[in-house]
């Protein structure tokens, strides 16, 4: 049988294939030949065949039938065989298959081989792919080699030990004695791998960390020698002596100095020295500076040193090399919390990085910019960030929009600015805004009482331009429903629309196929709310009744209930107006109770209608101030005041105190106070007056205290009294009114 073709020959042949099919054919032919050669247990050419198999494997073809052959090669006495065998094992064998365990004995023998290159092969393979079982079996051999005087083997044994420790952490103790004199080595290879081993041990075990802290002076000395020593051709890289070792030592110092004042102090000088003396013209110098900065920031360094470190990062930001700018931004992001003022000094450079072409740099610059926003720089920063929002890739827009909202909420210099900023975000990146922003924004707008007219006008205009961005459309619809009267009443600076135009726009949303079901819900509710503010009631009635047979169940339900309002309880409809305002109160209650995110729903308090004959219409609530957490309503002579506060000590409990005062001369009878809450809220009530039959005497007061624990849920309903109840619909701030019986 002719000798199997040589490796290079095969490679040459395969490369002549012009199509994938041709290549596959050649490979299959060769694989068949190799398979039969393996079957014949041919020792001479096994090495060559496995090498060819490895080549084909790299091209992507299956080679698992060569696994056992690799093991045979490893077991061979010839160095050539072992070389290929171990390589094959590392490429083809996988620790999850039991087959790999067959290697263990061979490796054990080879670790004790007379030729150091064979020992090296064994150490390398074990250190690269040794499974936990193998490591357990062979740890002793590795430990022995760690103590040898042969530096070639010692350095490999150290890294092999690192791997063993990673796989079987309990074995760490066993390597402790061998570490004793590792740092007294002159050989850089051994030094480097020893530092890696020490680092691994210190990272994994606090005891080891304590034990090795005493090495700090020695490490400092070694680092100093590296910096001060003259040119050493063997380890020189662009004028720096063994940068790899320097970086590893700096990293170990970081771990040892962390949360320890003495160690940190001992390394203070050398860190300052490295930071100031390292040549920065090439990447290698910057690599060392980078590691130094990370170390300075992590240990208990004195403030002068920290400022030095941040300034190095600031210089990095101005470097032409993108990679340097990238690591600078990453590091600044890590330190911005602890050294905020120092980082602020570099704010303008950071903001410039928003315009960088590289995606990773842009993202970091954006995160860092948001971290640097404060009350003093909000206007300038927001300009830059909004510009960024306009021009950035879609993958950034959601995060950027959220960031803008958060920053605006924290530092807005004025309400108008705040509203304008939100408008800008909604109009430029409206489709990327997160779902939970809509309720948050509505709450914000509600709280900015003096801006209502301005806001609704701007939002209305925005709707005229574009109805495709759903969050914008939803917020706008809500506002129009809420403040539509302000929109048409001439309070706005520009030409105001007439009622029919507004209704046109809202109806347009209902029919547009750009609108999602959620949006349609908002617009239907808004139309309904306008029935108490506008005069075109018939038109509204018509729209509402049409949607009573809508395919969309939500929409249909709402429409039906609104319809009912028109039909049965028309006289109550005006009072809904009052109730709608009460919802605003409860948004403020939200603030108090820190209902964050997913602000589905706000519980609604309703007012009571005493049995005294009602006068037509309700009276407008007088909403107090912006942030006062209270409100009052007077309906037909019954004045009701609400205050909200957080209970001490349990912040999950809100205490709502209701004062009801009969401001009329006559007695009010059958004043009923009821409260019903869904399961998610637990309600404790204490009343000073409860009996329904007890009349509330003229000008008398009764004080009620109600305690409720709020949570985010839908359909929350709180009825303070019989009468109208208003239910908040899931996930929206629109709501429908439905009427229940009088108690």
């Amino acid at each position, binding site marked *: 049988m002719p000798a199997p073709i040589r490796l290079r020959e095969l490679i040459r042949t395969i490369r002549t294939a012009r199509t994938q099919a041709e290549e596959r054919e050649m490979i299959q032919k060769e694989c068949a030949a190799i398979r039969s050669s393996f079957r014949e247990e041919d020792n001479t050419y096994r090495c060559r065949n496995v090498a060819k198999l490895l080549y084909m494997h790299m091209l992507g073809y299956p080679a698992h039938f060569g696994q056992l052959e690799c093991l045979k090669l490893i077991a061979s006495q010839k160095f050539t065989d072992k070389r290929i065998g171990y390589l094959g094992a590392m490429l083809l064998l996988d620790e999850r298959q039991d087959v790999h365990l067959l290697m263990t004995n061979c490796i054990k023998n080879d670790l004790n081989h007379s030729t150091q290159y064979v020992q090296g092969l064994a150490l390398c393979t074990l250190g690269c792919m040794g499974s936990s079982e193998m490591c357990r079996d062979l740890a002793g051999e590795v430990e022995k080699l760690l103590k040898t005087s042969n530096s070639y083997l010692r*350095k490999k044994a150290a890294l092999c030990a690192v791997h063993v420790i990673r796989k079987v952490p309990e074995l760490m103790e066993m390597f402790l004695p061998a570490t004793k004199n590792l740092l007294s080595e002159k050989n850089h290879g051994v030094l480097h791998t020893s530092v890696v081993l020490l680092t691994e041990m210190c990272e994994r075990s606090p005891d080891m960390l304590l034990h090795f802290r005493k090495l700090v002076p020695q490490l400092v000395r070694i680092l100093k020698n590296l910096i001060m020593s003259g040119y050493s051709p063997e380890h020189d890289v662009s004028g720096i002596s063994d940068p790899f070792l320097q970086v590893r030592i700096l990293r170990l110092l970081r771990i040892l100095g962390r949360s320890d004042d003495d160690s940190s102090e001992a390394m203070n000088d050398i860190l300052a020295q490295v930071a100031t003396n390292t040549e920065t013209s090439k990447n290698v110098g910057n690599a060392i500076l980078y590691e130094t900065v990370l170390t300075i920031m992590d240990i208990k360094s004195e403030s002068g040193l920290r400022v030095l470190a941040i300034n190095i990062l600031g210089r990095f930001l101005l470097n032409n090399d993108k990679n340097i700018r990238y690591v600078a931004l990453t590091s600044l992001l890590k330190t911005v919390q602890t050294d905020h003022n120092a980082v602020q000094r570099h704010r303008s450079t950071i903001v410039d990085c928003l315009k960088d072409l590289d995606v990773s740099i842009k993202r970091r610059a954006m995160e860092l910019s948001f971290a640097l926003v404060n009350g003093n720089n909000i206007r300038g920063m927001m300009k830059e960030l909004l510009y960024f929002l306009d021009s950035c890739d879609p993958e950034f827009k959601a995060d950027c929009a959220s960031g803008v909202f958060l920053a605006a909420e924290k530092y807005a210099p004025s309400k108008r600015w705040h509203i304008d900023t939100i408008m800008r975000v909604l109009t430029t990146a409206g489709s990327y805004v997160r779902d939970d922003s809509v309720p948050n924004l509505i709450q914000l707008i509600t709280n900015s009482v003096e801006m209502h007219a301005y806001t609704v006008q701007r939002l209305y205009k925005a709707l005229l331009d574009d109805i495709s961005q759903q969050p914008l459309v939803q917020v706008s619809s809500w506002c129009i429903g809420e403040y539509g009267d302000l929109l048409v009443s001439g309070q706005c600076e520009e030409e105001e629309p007439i009622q029919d135009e507004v209704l046109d726009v809202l109806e347009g949303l209902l029919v547009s196929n750009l609108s999602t079901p959620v949006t349609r819900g908002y617009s239907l509710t808004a139309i309904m709310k306008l029935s108490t503010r506008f005069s075109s009631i018939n038109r509204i009635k018509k729209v509402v009744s049409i949607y009573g047979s809508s395919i969309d169940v939500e929409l249909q339900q709402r429409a039906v209930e609104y319809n009912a309002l028109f039909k049965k309880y028309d006289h109550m409809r005006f009072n809904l107006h009052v109730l709608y305002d009460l919802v605003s109160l409860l948004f403020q209650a939200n603030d108090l109770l820190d209902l964050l995110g997913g602000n589905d729903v706000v519980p609604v308090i309703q007012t009571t209608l005493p049995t005294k004959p009602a006068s037509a219409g309700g009276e407008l609530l007088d909403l107090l101030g912006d942030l006062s957490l209270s409100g009052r309503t007077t309906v037909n002579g019954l004045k009701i005041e609400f205050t909200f506060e957080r209970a001490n000590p349990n912040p999950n409990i809100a205490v709502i105190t209701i004062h009801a005062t009969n401001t009329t001369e006559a007695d009010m009878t059958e004043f009923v106070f009821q409260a019903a809450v869904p399961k998610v809220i637990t309600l404790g009530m204490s009343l000073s007056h409860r009996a329904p039959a007890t009349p509330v005497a003229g000008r008398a007061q009764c004080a009620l205290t109600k305690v409720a624990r709020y949570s985010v849920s839908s359909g929350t309903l709180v009825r303070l009294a019989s009468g109208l109840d208003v239910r908040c619909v899931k996930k929206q701030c629109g709501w429908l009114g439905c009427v229940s019986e009088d108690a």
Partner: protein
Amino acid sequence: MQFMLLFSRQGKLRLQKWYVPLSDKERKKISRDLVQTILARKPKMCSFLEWRDLKIVYKRYASLYFCCAVEDQDNELITLEIIHRYVELLDKYFGSVCELDIIFNFEKAYFILDEFLLGGEAQETSKKNVLKAIEQADLLQEAIEQADLLQEVRLLTDP
């Protein structure tokens, strides 16, 4: 380091060194996806990217991409130096290395890498020492092969 890949501009893998246990299938998937991601990057972009939950450091030398996946706490800039050192070693060994050298002598490229890195960390920081070790090992291999040849000849000539 978790793994190192060398691949051409057409996406053909020339070397793959894995320091974490992964099945063949998983390795193939990672290689394929990562290679595509890197080839899609423009030349002026920086050498670092976050990919899945890994930090990737890559650099192109002529027609070959050298790509490493490193851990969170690893220094990206020094990883670039590691890559550069490996290229220098190949260059010294092959004499002005080019992609063809890596293709036809892939096993040597692995041997050199295994003398420079072990378990994902540098075992030797002196270029000279790495090259010396490879040279010695090659000599050992040659000696054995010559001995074999001699043995064959002896068998043929012996009566």
